[in-house]
């Protein structure tokens, strides 16, 4: 089962994609995706209900968030009422150890994204400040990376023993599915996804040429 774990819709300030248009694009282009996870910037979209689209297109649509920390951007999966009160999703300088701990204690899972990118990536902060405990997984394939960034992500992930996931980081429709994550087991809910991320029964994939 393949999911794009990093996507933005019009709910993000810089997102220009409607979720319905993502769905029809996936089907029209026959992309090998079984679903997407919407990771809106600095917020958790508790309101949107995509069940009709899931049924119409036969896709799984889950919701997570991309938050900002002092070590770069981080995807948080399994967001719930406890987690949105555990730290401020709107802040741009959340301490990474606090985000990792809050995600874990609230039953979720946090994954630094595009870690090979300057300024907003984990590994550029490691150069200055050293590694952070409790990082287990990073996004090693990101659809918005420029040449060299994903290579750095993979090399550094290997060096620190982190597992990898993939996501397109799409902000417009036609970028969906450039990178994704393949799961060994079926994923039907966010709990399934968090469990798979914890156990490592998944593998990053890229279709970028």
């Amino acid at each position, binding site marked *: 089962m393949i999911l794009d774990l990093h996507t933005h819709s019009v709910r993000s300030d810089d997102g220009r994609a409607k979720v319905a*248009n993502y769905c029809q694009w996936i089907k029209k282009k026959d992309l090998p995706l079984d679903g997407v996870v919407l990771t809106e910037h600095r917020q958790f979209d508790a309101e949107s209900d995509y069940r009709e689209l899931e049924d119409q297109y036969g896709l799984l649509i889950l919701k997570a968030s991309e938050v900002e920390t002092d070590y770069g951007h981080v995807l948080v999966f399994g967001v719930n009422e406890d987690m949105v009160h555990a730290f401020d999703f709107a802040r741009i300088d959340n301490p990474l150890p606090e985000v990792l701990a809050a995600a874990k204690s609230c039953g979720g899972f946090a994954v630094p994204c595009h870690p090979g990118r300057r300024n907003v990536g984990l590994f550029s902060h490691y150069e200055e400040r050293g590694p952070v405990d409790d990082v287990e997984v990073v996004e090693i394939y990101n659809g918005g990376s420029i040449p060299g960034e994903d290579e750095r992500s993979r090399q550094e992930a290997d060096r620190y023993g982190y597992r990898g996931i993939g996501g397109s980081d799409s902000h417009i429709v036609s970028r969906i599915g450039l990178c994704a994550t393949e799961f060994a087991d079926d994923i039907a809910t966010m709990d399934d996804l968090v469990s798979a991320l914890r156990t490592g029964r998944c593998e990053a994939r890229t279709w970028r040429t």
Partner: protein
Amino acid sequence: MRIEDVELGDELPEERPDVSLETVRRFVKAAEMDFPRFTDHEAARAEGLPGAVIPGIMSQGQLAAMIHRWAPGCSILSLDTIFRTSMIVGTPVVCRGAVTDIDDDGIVEIDVTIISETSGATGVLGTARVRLT
């Protein structure tokens, strides 16, 4: 280009607009926005930019031109762009577009991007709503 001829997923022909210093100088003069950050690499660096940058409205004009060449006579209802990284004057770029939605009123939605051919970075991305004949 008629609405009947368009399919979801269609790609517009790529364009590689002239972003040379000379052309940018002519553009900013015509647009009455002749500032050194657009026309002088050293002056731009002094402002903290990586070099002279292509004006945002010039990038939008290049995207609009691409759409009009694909569909002469169309009306661009909106062109909503996000500027993610500075596009440097004299560095080759490629403009791309793809049809991502078609509605019953003859309006198509198009993803548009401008990508640096040197770094591979997407400098501009966005969407256009276009009424076809």
